[in-house]
């Protein structure tokens, strides 16, 4: 059987690709479209390294078929920075050294961004629960949580001062 011809919007751009049914959205992003920012950790929805936004919902792209993204809006880590200007979360992760090997970082940034868009002032507990599906095996959780809290503070201040 021929491959599926899929049209989707990825990071605001219309994209077309061919995929087989069993290819996940993560496979498509990385192998067909060259968007290798989303990482494969577990491939079973446990680690969150492949987190992307699908029609405004945070999902694991390893648990979405590529063909399911037909007509969908997908947002990946590649769309988080605006040109050369880093997102406040990316900036704060750098400043707080909230990463070691970096494999989990794209997933954490995408997931944390989704949280801050819903709740600009989350408590530490809310952040920890929201990010419970993002695993870091370098044991960097505390710095990651601090970085999200710091970025949230910066974003609120920026919003106030325009």
């Amino acid at each position: 059987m021929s491959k599926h011809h899929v049209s989707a919007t990825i990071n605001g751009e219309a994209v077309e690709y061919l995929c087989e049914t069993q290819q996940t959205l993560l496979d498509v992003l990385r192998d067909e479209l060259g968007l290798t920012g989303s990482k494969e950790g577990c491939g079973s929805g446990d680690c969150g390294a492949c987190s992307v936004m699908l029609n405004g919902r945070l999902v694991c792209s390893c648990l979405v078929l590529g063909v399911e993204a037909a007509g969908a809006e997908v947002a990946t880590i590649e769309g988080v920075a605006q040109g050369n200007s880093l997102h406040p979360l990316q900036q704060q992760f750098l400043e707080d050294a909230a990463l070691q090997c970096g494999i989990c970082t794209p997933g954490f940034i995408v997931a944390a961004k989704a949280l801050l868009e819903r709740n600009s002032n989350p408590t530490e507990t809310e952040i920890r629960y929201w990010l419970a599906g993002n695993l870091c095996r370098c044991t960097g959780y505390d710095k990651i949580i601090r970085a999200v809290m710091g970025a949230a503070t910066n974003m609120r201040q920026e919003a106030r001062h325009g």
Partner: protein
Amino acid sequence: MEAIKYVRPNSVDDAVRSLASANEPVRVLAGGTDLLVQLRAGNVRPGLVVDIKGIAELKQIQVTAAGCRIGAAVAGAELSERADVVAQWPGVVEAFQLIGSTQIQGRASLGGNLCNASPAADSVPALIAAGARCTIAGPAGRREAAVEDIVISPGKTSLAQGEFIVDFLLPARPAHSGDAYLRFIPRTEMDIAVVGAGVSLTLDANGRCTAARLALGAVAPRPLLVPAGATALVGTPVDNAALEKLAAAASAACTPIDDKRGTIEFRTRVAGVLARRAAVIALQRAKGN
């Protein structure tokens, strides 16, 4: 390997036709949080995947005089955002929310959690306690069934070839009703229930229990409705004596496995403890509405 075919029908009838016409093994795809893991592990090798999320009816949430109707493919995050459902059925919503991470909540569905047929599925005891019924579509048309009649053993359901779940109805209850679901896991998040307990109850104007349902998860080959739990509460003010009987009924209903997550003795005892605690929460909620 043969290529896997994929279809995304727009209506229940088209989905039924796709399922009926397939010559190869078929899997229904809702949120995919179990199916994609099984596909990757090679545990299932379908020739056709029928994605039911394109069917509007399966993605709807409707609150009417008859009760709350929830499409089988509605995701946890979508249900959690419905304040009217959360207000009426906090126990069902909190059980659904316990499934997996934020990412999983963006996809996982009630229909999938039921049809995956795990004895430890969190939403299922809460649905059973709520008296939920499901609409099933298949080659012989539509039929209704109680949720407790769907799972028959680990990984097996009573659905016939070509059947799938369309929606769930949580029947409307009188005033002074409440429900709750609790599970035991050795951490606070991201784990599979060692024991789960759901309770739904209704009080009369004098605070006496007029109806109750108790359901347990992870203590038998399938989620259980425990009629003796209702007997323990109905006619009482849900006082200590009644709660003791409820806990005893819960423990007596258990036929759990012994594994690394919990021994038989532990699960049996904890089932009673959780049933009691869930009943206390359901009681508080019933008094508050």
